[in-house]
């Protein structure tokens, strides 16, 4: 029996998905395309969004009945890894994890579902708020009489989005509302990011918005969608780390000093091995966490698994991208070499949705809580 015969059909599906996503990104120009977009205006490419949609990317975790592929988070992770490998700026994790993560749980029949899956619209999700000391604070944004008032921070994918899914408070409790990007009374302030993208700070003053859902279900769906997005961001970092290491390995094999490739020096070799091991552990751990999330319904356990994934992925990506700069020498410190693009994207993805220290805390607390409950 050959190896492929022995692989389960699930694994075979994932392998094919990985191959088609990789081909799609490579044909579009790989990391070179991402650099061009960054140099243009830091946005994304609308044609690419449509191509990704045609390949089923956005609907990967959406049930087949709602027009998706129904393949689960592990498959979403496969795509996110490929996004990470070419540091593509398209908001794949935002769409799959957050906007569709919310809509498929709260209002699967809403017209926006089809548009998101079909790549004809992009929505960013706004739920966190900034407090007076600059850090995250209690949410105070209000929704009343069909209008939003307040502000939201750290909105990824805000620039270029057609609208915003906003979590706000109302007299009836938490609500999820949809505000169009062009709605009146909405202003968007861009906060430039290391990778050339921009995060959005939104403020609403009587901005008209459509209510999509209300009640405790909103908070539950938000928590679950954030877990999904966290895990997918971890997968994106795994793909990013994988490619960053490949670039570095190629470099140390070809760069010569003292009449030899620098990769023949033992200290360089051992550092390279450590990065390799880090990458393999991260890939195995993150993939396992995502697969376990697919077979887990308890939102707290899913959150713990997502924290495990993000804690690992951030730690690996930080180490790999930073050591990669060192192993490149001065060219690593230039904008011209691709390795820097990977470092910069890793910075942004690490800070988004919590870094490794944050997620170790979350993971530890969740584990304690589970232990106490037993």
């Amino acid at each position, binding site marked *: 029996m050959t*190896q492929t015969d022995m692989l389960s059909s699930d694994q075979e599906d994932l392998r094919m998905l990985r191959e088609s996503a990789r081909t799609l990104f490579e044909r579009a120009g790989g990391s070179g395309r991402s650099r061009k977009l960054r140099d243009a205006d830091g946005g994304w490419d609308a044609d690419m969004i449509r191509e990704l949609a045609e390949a089923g990317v956005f609907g990967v975790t959406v049930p087949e009945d709602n027009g998706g592929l129904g393949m689960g988070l592990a498959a979403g992770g496969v795509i996110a890894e490929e996004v990470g490998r070419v540091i593509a700026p398209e908001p794949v994790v935002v769409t799959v994890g957050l906007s569709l993560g919310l809509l498929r749980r709260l209002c699967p029949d809403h017209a926006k579902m089809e548009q998101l899956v079909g790549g004809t619209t992009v929505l960013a999700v706004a739920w966190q708020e900034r407090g007076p000391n600059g850090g995250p604070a209690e949410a105070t944004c209000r929704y009343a009489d069909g209008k939003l008032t307040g502000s939201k921070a750290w909105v990824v994918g805000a620039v270029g989005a057609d609208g915003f899914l906003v979590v706000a408070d109302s007299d009836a409790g938490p609500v999820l509302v949809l505000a169009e990007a062009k709605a009146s009374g909405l202003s968007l302030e861009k906060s430039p990011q290391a990778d050339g993208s921009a995060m959005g700070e939104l403020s609403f003053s009587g901005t008209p918005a459509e209510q999509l859902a209300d009640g405790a279900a909103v908070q539950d769906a938000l928590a679950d969608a954030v877990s999904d997005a966290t895990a997918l961001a971890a997968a994106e970092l795994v793909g990013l780390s994988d490619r960053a290491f490949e670039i570095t390995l190629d470099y140390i094999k070809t760069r010569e000093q003292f009449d*030899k490739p620098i990769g023949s020096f033992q200290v360089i070799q051992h550092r390279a091995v450590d990065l390799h091991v880090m990458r393999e552990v991260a890939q*195995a751990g993150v993939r396992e966490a995502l697969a376990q999330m697919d077979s887990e319904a308890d939102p707290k356990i899913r959150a713990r698994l997502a924290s495990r994934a993000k804690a690992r992925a951030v730690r690996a990506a930080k180490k790999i991208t930073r050591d990669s700069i060192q192993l490149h020498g001065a060219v690593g410190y230039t904008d011209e070499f691709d390795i820097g693009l990977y470092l910069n994207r890793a910075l942004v993805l690490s800070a988004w949705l919590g870094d490794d220290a944050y997620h170790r805390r979350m*993971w530890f607390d969740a584990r304690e809580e589970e232990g106490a409950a037993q």
Partner: protein
Amino acid sequence: MTDWNAMSDAEFRKEVRGFFEAEYPEELRHLPHRPKFAEIEHWHVKLHAKGWVAPAWPAEFGGMGLNAAKLLIFYEEQQRWGVNRGRDMGIQMVGPLIIKFGTQEQKDYWLPRILSCEDIWCQGYSEPGAGSDLANLRTRADIEGDEFVINGQKIWTTMAHDATHIFMLVRTDPDAPKKQQGISFLLAPMDQPGVEVRTITTLSGETEFCEVFFDNARTPKANLVGELNKGWTMAKALLSFERIFIGSPSLAQNALGQLESFARGRGAFDDPVFRDRFAQAALDVEDHAALYGRFADQLKRGETLGADVSMLKIWVTECFQRITELMIEAAGPDGGTIGPLQVGNVNVDVLASFYKARPTTIYGGSNEIQRNILSKAVLGLPG
């Protein structure tokens, strides 16, 4: 004869677990030191009667004949229950070598004696000048009549003071063009005038390994295993399964369990810095287990493992060390205290765990050597 491989993994695991839990002597669980044979003989007798002494050997030689998947389960259960591996150098190293390269007479004579522990073996590879660079070994064996005459010294020979026989790599052709050539694999009795054993006290105060001196010691020519001067390649051939076993998560998992109950008892989790480091160690173990699973699946599919498997050993041994270092931190002012420390109703021997973790990065191919291997064989780095 039971065909264990025909069982489902779950059934087999249950069978193995059931036997260990019912039969393994409680006082021998998680032994902190390497036992002499007399200390574990009563367990060995049970294991022998059950026919479970040699899980990896083919059934025709008295083994269990387990395939790789079942073997992993066997070892996982063994470690989970804290079952001592016993004096298994004969089982793990000599037996497989004789089975693969030995003559019929050698098989008939030695294998039953290994199984019954009538002969207890120690491994004589390392020498003062031949550690990581093992091929540099100089202990000589010269043919005189129908005997080999052995002169030289072995060192770090684990439990040589409690062994009846030694299997060794010796130089039989000093003029071979490469140092890996001219090495042979030889069996020799310890109880003879030309062999002197001196114990070496370890950091933890145990006598676990020895120096062995050979001064015109003798062994029959019939005790050469395989071809003369072909010992190096034979010894290498043994390593393949060993490489995943040495990278299995269980040592680190057990230590983590100890760390957790100890730290909880001591209130170390009140400190957020400690919590973070514990979380990091626990996640290191969890994610290592995921990677280990990937290699184990490869074995289960019948594939052979490549040099890449070395990364398991690197990661898990260093992780094991960090965990035991955290135990010492959690012990605070007791961090230098010998013997079990009482916390609540559990005893944790913090120093014993710490010491046990130290040599794991040295033996079985030091972690630096493993990094050399990975860098060349896996990453394809030059030089």
